[in-house]
């Protein structure tokens, strides 16, 4: 038996778990990156991107699941509503706590970040910065004044103006001012002379904006952090030339700051820079943390929802299978085998279902086998069997039923009795006979009735109600037999008995009556006066003749009632016929008797005397039927016949007489069927009896033109005991 397994596609867990792990990792890295930007800072944007893509993939997965679910719900697929319920439950359980935690976390982060900042700290930092600035300002102003004094002294003006200033002059100035480096530049910023404590050959020169400021006539002083780690005061002042047309010069100096002040100022600056950066980033940090948290939230939600889908699918799949399996069993398909996927209660349910369908399938097979068995028995039954439902619809009919009724009932299955009767006229009498019984209150009935088809048939029919599950009748079963043969036999047996009695009772007194009549005649014929002799003679003759007739009749009865005992010996039928025909030719010279014998006809095992009786009877009937006016012709033929595996001798006796009258045609072979004034009606009955004793058949029918034809077929093989026995019955 081919068992079809229900196929099932299950969502794959591994890729989703992998994706989940990846997202989790990026989220961890992201939370680190938000906190300190050095370690994973460079990856931050990439992490966000990966996360967003991952979440979108999750969203697509969920959307696909959701679409499937909606479709299933719309199609009312089994298990869909259960899935929905499990889904809403799981999602509800997961979403609410996660959202609550999220809301609180976001608030806490906001508060936490705000707690970093304090107005007093802010103010303190700004104050210390201002303090540093003031301290430095003092030094700067000092340096500026020193440089302005130096510039006013016109360095090197004594000996040939500014052009003649050499590095040695500047060295002296530098020492006086206490600067680390002093340089003299022309108005375009090119170096003219320089002096420095440092070993560097290239002096540090002011940038373009400073030169621009000087060109506008404003001296410059400012802090410069560009030289290593220490702060310097950079001063640049214009040196106004004395002579007319002389070019403006720039005196540039770098002053170091006391190391302690330098350190403090730098620390303050660093701390403030860090603090202001933090203040500036405050909202962005909050947003950033919230975003990370939101991503975590979405990740958790999506994962939970996806898992809800996954587990709902896993849980509902066997239930859906069960539902579909039950449906297919209900539709009559017992071949469904469901996959057993788990070892829990559901798995147990599924395997129980499988066992159940297997059992049902086996039971159905058994029923089918029994059905086939009953069908075989019914088809081999010689009785006709019909079943009808409550609406008199034909449910089943076996072969014998069709055979007995003479119509093919296979085409009439599923029709009711009225339709069948309308279809087959032959069945009208049958339907009329059983219809009242079906409506009868008695459950069982029996009836004998005749139907008229190609020939008259007597049916013995029995019927009963078919019991249903709850005892209510669900239909009828009708069994019937063709008892025509049986009745025929019974009738023949009865007639034989009558004939035997008649012969016995009547034959005995006949001889004394005849003898008495003859003695009467001898004794009184001469004694009586002549006018009465004639009367006596006529009366006694009548008695004697009538008694003679009665004797023949009684003999015929005796013949009919005689026990069947044939003494078979090889007989040449042609010879026998020739003998009989000669007799008739001399007796009826007016009748022309034609013969056509088959010379090939072999010897036949038969009782010669009986066979002669058969021929006598048939020929006598033919001659009696011949008309007196016309030319009477009798034609007798023999043939050697081969049919299938049996061989026959056929004798045909044709006449051109009156033919058989229609009213007796059907039962012409029955005893006492005659339309002759003095006929016994036993002739053909005896013929039939003898022929059947020989295992043969006899048939009498009207010819197309005029007259009748009698056909006798006798088997050429020896008569078996069986056929002899049956003939007795």
């Amino acid at each position, binding site marked *: 038996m081919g068992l079809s397994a229900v196929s099932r596609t299950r969502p794959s867990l591994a890729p989703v778990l992998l994706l989940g792990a990846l997202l989790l990792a990026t989220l961890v890295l992201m939370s680190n990156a938000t906190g300190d930007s050095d370690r994973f800072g460079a990856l931050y944007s990439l992490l966000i991107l990966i996360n967003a893509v991952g979440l979108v993939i999750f969203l697509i997965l969920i959307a696909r699941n959701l679409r499937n679910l909606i479709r299933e719900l719309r199609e009312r697929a089994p298990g869909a509503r259960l899935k929905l319920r499990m889904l809403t439950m799981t999602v509800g359980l997961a979403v609410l706590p996660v959202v609550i935690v999220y809301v609180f976390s976001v608030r806490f982060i906001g508060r936490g970040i705000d707690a970093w900042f304090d107005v007093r700290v802010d103010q303190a930092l700004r104050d210390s910065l201002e303090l540093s600035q003031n301290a430095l300002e003092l030094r700067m102003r000092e340096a500026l004044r020193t440089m302005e004094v130096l510039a006013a002294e016109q360095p090197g003006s004594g000996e040939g103006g500014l052009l003649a200033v050499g590095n040695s002059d500047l060295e002296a100035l530098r020492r006086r001012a206490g600067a680390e480096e002093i340089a003299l530049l022309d108005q375009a910023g090119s170096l003219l002379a320089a002096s420095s404590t440092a070993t560097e050959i290239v002096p540090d020169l002011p*940038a373009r904006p400073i030169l621009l400021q000087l060109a506008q006539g404003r001296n410059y002083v*400012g802090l410069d*952090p*560009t030289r290593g780690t220490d702060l310097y005061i950079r001063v640049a002042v214009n040196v106004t030339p004395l002579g007319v047309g002389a070019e403006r010069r720039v005196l540039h100096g770098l002053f170091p700051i006391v190391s302690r002040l330098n350190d403090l100022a*730098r620390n303050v600056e660093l701390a403030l*820079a*860090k603090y202001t950066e933090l203040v500036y980033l405050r909202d962005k940090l909050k947003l950033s943390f919230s975003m990370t948290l939101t991503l975590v939230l979405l990740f958790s939600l999506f994962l939970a929802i996806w898992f809800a889908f996954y587990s709902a699918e896993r849980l509902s799949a066997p239930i859906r299978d069960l539902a579909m399996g039950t449906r297919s069993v209900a539709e009559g398909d017992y071949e469904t085998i469901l996959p057993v996927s788990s070892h829990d209660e559901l798995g147990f349910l599924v395997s129980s279902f499988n066992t159940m369908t297997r059992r049902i399938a086996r039971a159905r097979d058994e029923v089918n086998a029994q059905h086939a068995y009953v069908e075989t028995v019914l088809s081999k039954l010689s009785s006709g069997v019909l079943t009808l439902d409550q609406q008199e619809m034909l449910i089943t009919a076996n072969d014998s039923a069709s055979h007995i009724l003479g119509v093919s009932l296979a085409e009439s299955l599923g029709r009711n009795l009225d339709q069948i009767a309308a279809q087959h006229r032959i069945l009208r009498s049958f339907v009329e006979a059983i219809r009242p019984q079906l409506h009868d209150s008695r459950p069982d009935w029996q009836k004998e009735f005749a139907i008229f088809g190609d020939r008259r048939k007597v049916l013995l029919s029995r019927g009963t109600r078919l019991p249903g599950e709850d005892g209510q009748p669900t239909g009828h079963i009708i069994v019937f037999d063709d008892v025509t043969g049986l009745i025929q036999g019974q009738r023949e047996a009865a007639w034989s008995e009558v004939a035997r009695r008649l012969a016995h009772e009547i034959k005995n007194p006949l001889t004394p009556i005849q003898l008495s009549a003859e003695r009467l005649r001898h004794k009184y014929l001469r004694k009586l006066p002549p006018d009465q002799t004639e009367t006596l003679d006529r009366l006694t003759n009548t008695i004697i003749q009538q008694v003679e007739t009665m004797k023949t009749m009684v003999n015929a009865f005796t013949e009919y009632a005689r026990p069947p005992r044939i003494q078979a010996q090889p007989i040449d039928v042609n010879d026998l016929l020739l003998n009989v025909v000669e007799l008739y030719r001399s007796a009826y010279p007016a009748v022309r008797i034609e013969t056509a014998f088959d010379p090939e006809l072999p010897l036949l095992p038969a009782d010669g005397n009986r066979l002669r009786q058969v021929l006598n009877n048939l020929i006598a009937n033919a001659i009696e039927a011949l008309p007196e006016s016309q030319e009477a012709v009798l034609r007798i033929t023999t043939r050697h016949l081969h049919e299938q595996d049996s061989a026959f001798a056929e004798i045909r006796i044709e006449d051109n007489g009156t033919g058989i009258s229609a009213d007796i045609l059907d039962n012409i072979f029955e005893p006492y069927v005659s339309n002759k004034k003095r006929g016994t009606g036993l002739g053909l009955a005896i013929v039939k009896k003898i022929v059947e004793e020989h295992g043969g058949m006899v048939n009498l029918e009207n010819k197309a033109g005029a007259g009748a034809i009698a056909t006798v077929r006798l088997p050429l093989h020896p008569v078996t005991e069986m056929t002899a026995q049956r003939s007795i019955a």
Partner: protein
Amino acid sequence: MLLFGGQGVHAGNISIHDARTAIINDIVHLDLDLDLEFNPDVIEALRSGIAIEFAIDIEFNRPRWYWLNAEVARGKHRFRISFLPLSEQYLLTNVVTGDRQTLPSFDDVITALGTLRSLPLAEVSNFKAGRKYRCAVQVRLDIEALPAPMRPLAYFSRAWRMASDWFEWDFQL
């Protein structure tokens, strides 16, 4: 908080006015003239202590009629602007060379950044004399150099998305 650079605020913008190459000591140098416009948001961030970096990408390509252009050399420069609260000056640092420059006002920063001179690019040996090369340069504000919390917003803000188009010219030894 400004998310997407609203309609009223003008967006930051960089456009390359001119770019030239010059060869000094067998090294190809780049002179760059830029027009820079800063969104107040950026200046505020700068004054709050956020360092801002500009990346300059230069590519030398050899055009090929039969195939994609071949890349011959590629250079990178990076300038960082930061604010010094103590001296209330701006510090402009060339990250590649380490050159630092203090500038008293933001206008000075714009001027200094707008006239970049003698940025070393590639050695002359990379190029064949007489052959034509295609030079391309782009300047942009590097969002990835900002502190992590600022980046996501900066990507979506017109104030921070400062990037010039590629400026192309022919170059021949």
